[in-house]
Every structure is written in structure tokens, then in C-alpha cells.
């Protein structure tokens, strides 16, 4: 192997967390960016009306807030309609292997602490093909921001049921209705030990942006489920949550430290009954017997509340959106860096060339 390929030698301390480099101009301070700076020259190719356009616009509109150099941001995607996302971002990006974006992003994030790494995935890519990779990234708390576009259908392959399709759903691959119990991505993430779990809706730009902001601030794996319409193969997937006539009665906006109220005038509430379950109560503020009104606490160490909230729709309650859980956990990246530093302190910087050319080997 030529000298240049191994140069500089792979020795010395490993990666460590460093503050991401902000764009600054010595004379003027931080440089102002706009959404335009994050648009690539590629023609955007999704079906007209696809929810992906709204998410792309929201992400491009939000990224300037971070003040990071574009070359320090990476979008890694798997396979699916949403996974075309990196082409349209004027950042680094990778359209990777089906379901494996979290694995590739894990390596990138751990070895390049100067990067802000985002994963773009869908309900099929993340929960079926890549279900394994997703849960392991979540449990490790790698410093990744995972945006899971959930439209409850396989759109790219023209309309088969996905791991989040409703029971009984009739699709090309379930002509008599789906028999599968769907995954609830938020429940799954909380169950996998994720430190940050949130949900938002593609068409609500303000809410989507606020959730992206919270995810970006979190050090560790942030999973954001984004309800997204597929107007070709699953049109109206979340219509009841989007239609102004119905959304107030079906959408619960989670706010830290606030009671769980919903309805057009906040007239409905969620209470915890004697058995510990969450359920809708008839009237806001009213306590029925021993039932207690619940105050949202995303920072609670115990994931029980976040999990119970995630199950509300399955238990006849409204669908919560917002941050379910945001709990500080040591990030995988930081721990790896610390471990490498300890190893260097204990055993010296090491010499990869010597290791590769050395006599230390095993025979099997």
C-alpha cells in the first residue's frame, strides 16, 4: 500500500466531540443564510401534491437557524420516496441502502464529530426493512436526527401495505384487508430506549419547525415521526388530523408542563385513572373520582408517561403531536471518544501501520 493512502498515520487520539463550526465572517460575525442556500440545483421529483415537498421546504427553511456550514451537514437516506431527499439539499448527502441509513449514519457521526448528521427514512424503510438498525441506533443514542416520514403505505412501489398501515387496510398486496397489527413508531422508539421522541405533521409548518428545532438541540438520537400524506396511494391518510373541522377534537398538542388539553377551546382533557391508564375525560378540569389530570413532562426519566401517551389513539383517545420524550442520556459518540482517549492515555497512541504489518496474528 502506498505511503499516501496511510498518511497521515492513523494514530493519536480518536474523535472527540467538538462544537460544530459556525459560519462566521471575522469582520461581520455570523453569516446570514436563507432557505435558498440549502436548495440544490436538482429538479425535485415527487408526485405533485406529495407531503414530502412540505417537509423539504420546512427543513430548508429551518436549517439556516443552526448557523452551520453546509459542508458540515449530512443527510443520509435509505430507499423509498422520502429517500430522494438528500438530492434536493445543498449539503453533503448519501442515498444509501434500504433500511441501513442509521447504520451508515452511525459510523459517520461517531467518526466525524464535526458533522451534523440527519437520517431521512420512511415507514417501510425504517420499520420493516431497517427495523433492526433503527432500534439499535436508538438504544445507543448515536448523535443522529432521524426524520421518519410516515404515510402508512409503500408509495415508491405503487401502493402495498406498510408496517404502519391500519388493520383491515385494502391495498394491492392485501386485497382482503391487512391482518397485521401496525407499528406505532413513537411507542417503538420509546420502547427501544430512545432519549428523544417526537411527532409532527407535514402540513403544519410551524409545528414541524418547532419539533425540528427541539430535535436539533438534543445530543443523541432524536426520532421525529412526521405524518405525511401520499396523495396518490394513500390520500387522506391523516385527514382527520388535518381538516380544520375535525382536527381540534382529534389532535392533542403536547406542551411541556401543561395539562393535556385538546378541543377547539381546550374543553377535553386526559386523565390517569385508578389503574394508571391514560384516557380522555368528559370535561376539562373535572376530576372524576380518583382520576387525576395529567401534566405533560417530556423530561421524566421514567418512559411510562411517554409510552402511555403514544398509545392514546389505540385506546380511543386523541393523537398526540409534539415532544413525547426528551431526556438527557450520554451520547454514543461522546462515550466512544472518551473510551479512545482513555485507551490512548493508558497504552499510548498506538500505531495502525505497525499493527497491520506486525506479527500479532491468530491461526484458526
Amino acid at each position, binding site marked *: 500500500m502506498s505511503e499516501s493512502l496511510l498518511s497521515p498515520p492513523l494514530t493519536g487520539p480518536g474523535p472527540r466531540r467538538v462544537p460544530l463550526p459556525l459560519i462566521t465572517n471575522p469582520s461581520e460575525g455570523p453569516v446570514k443564510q436563507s432557505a435558498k442556500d440549502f436548495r440544490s440545483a436538482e429538479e425535485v421529483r415527487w408526485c405533485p401534491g406529495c407531503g414530502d415537498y412540505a417537509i423539504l421546504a420546512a427543513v430548508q427553511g429551518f436549517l439556516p437557524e443552526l448557523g452551520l456550514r453546509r459542508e458540515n451537514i449530512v443527510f443520509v437516506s435509505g430507499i423509498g420516496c422520502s429517500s430522494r431527499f438528500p438530492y434536493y439539499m445543498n449539503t453533503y448527502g448519501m442515498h444509501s441502502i434500504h433500511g441501513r441509513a442509521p447504520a451508515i449514519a452511525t459510523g459517520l457521526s461517531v467518526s466525524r464529530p464535526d458533522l451534523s448528521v440527519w437520517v431521512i427514512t420512511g415507514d417501510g424503510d425504517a420499520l420493516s426493512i431497517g427495523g433492526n438498525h433503527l432500534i439499535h441506533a436508538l438504544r445507543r443514542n448515536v448523535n443522529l436526527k432521524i426524520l421518519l416520514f410516515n404515510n402508512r403505505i409503500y408509495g415508491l412501489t405503487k401502493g402495498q401495505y406498510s408496517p404502519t398501515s391500519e388493520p383491515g387496510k385494502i391495498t394491492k398486496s392485501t386485497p382482503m384487508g391487512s391482518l397485521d397489527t401496525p407499528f406505532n413508531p413513537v411507542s417503538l422508539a420509546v420502547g427501544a430506549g430512545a432519549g428523544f421522541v417526537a411527532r409532527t405533521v407535514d402540513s403544519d409548518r410551524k409545528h414541524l419547525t418547532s419539533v425540528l428545532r427541539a430535535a436539533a438541540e438534543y445530543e443523541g438520537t432524536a426520532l421525529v415521526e412526521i405524518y405525511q400524506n401520499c*396523495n396518490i396511494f394513500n390520500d387522506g391518510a391523516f385527514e382527520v388530523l388535518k381538516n380544520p373541522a375535525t382536527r381540534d377534537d382529534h389532535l392533542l398538542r403536547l406542551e411541556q408542563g401543561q395539562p393535556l388539553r385538546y378541543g377547539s377551546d381546550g374543553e377535553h382533557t386526559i386523565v390517569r385513572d385508578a389503574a394508571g391508564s391514560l384516557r380522555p375525560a368528559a370535561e376539562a378540569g373535572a376530576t372524576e373520582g380518583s382520576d387525576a389530570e395529567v401534566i405533560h413532562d417530556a423530561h421524566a426519566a421514567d418512559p411510562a408517561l411517554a409510552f402511555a401517551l403514544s398509545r392514546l389513539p389505540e385506546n380511543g383517545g386523541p393523537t398526540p403531536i409534539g415532544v413525547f420524550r426528551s431526556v438527557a442520556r450520554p451520547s454514543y459518540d461522546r462515550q466512544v471518544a472518551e473510551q479512545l482517549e482513555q485507551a490512548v492515555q493508558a497504552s499510548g497512541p498506538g500505531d495502525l501501520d505497525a499493527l497491520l504489518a506486525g506479527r500479532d496474528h491468530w491461526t484458526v
Partner: protein
Amino acid sequence: MTYVIGTNCVDVKDRTCIAECPVDCIYEGERMLYIHPDECVDCGACEPVCPVEAIYPADTLPTEWLWHLDAATAVTAGREDEPDAGPVDDHPDVLKLPARTGSA
């Protein structure tokens, strides 16, 4: 970028585009409809459903309709904070257009 509604919409206002828009960025004036250029996400759902071919992406807008982008920008300014506040006031240059009857 954004999509822009041009003169063909004036006094027609078919409104199919409003139902089609996934982000509710089309606002109704007295004489025509306007797309909020900052709320538009460029998804293109409105363009094919317009029966009078009034909608174009801003970069392929017919030259004589270029002023409609500025008109829409002015008319919809601030509406992102109060989307349900009812119809918008038509742009003065739209009000000056001659009355149109029948299909375009």
C-alpha cells in the same frame, strides 16, 4: 420558488386548486386567487387541476404575467399568521383588469 396564479383566474376562481393544495397556501380575493409565495412548497398539485391554465411555476411564468408574483407577494403578506381571516383584498393592478366573462 413558488407557483403563481395569472390573469386567466380573474373572474373565474374555479377553486379546485384550493382543495388540492396540501399546505393551504392559496388565498381567495374578490376577483382571483393568490398563492402565498413563502408558504408554497412547490409541490405542483395545483397546476394540473386548474381548468383555465392560470397556474405556472414562477420560473416559467409567461412574461406578461410576471407582475402577478409581486401582486401575490403583496396581497398575502402577513397572512401566514392568520390563515383563517377570510378573503384577501385584491391587488390594485388586478382590480384594474377588464371584467372577464365565460371561460378563458
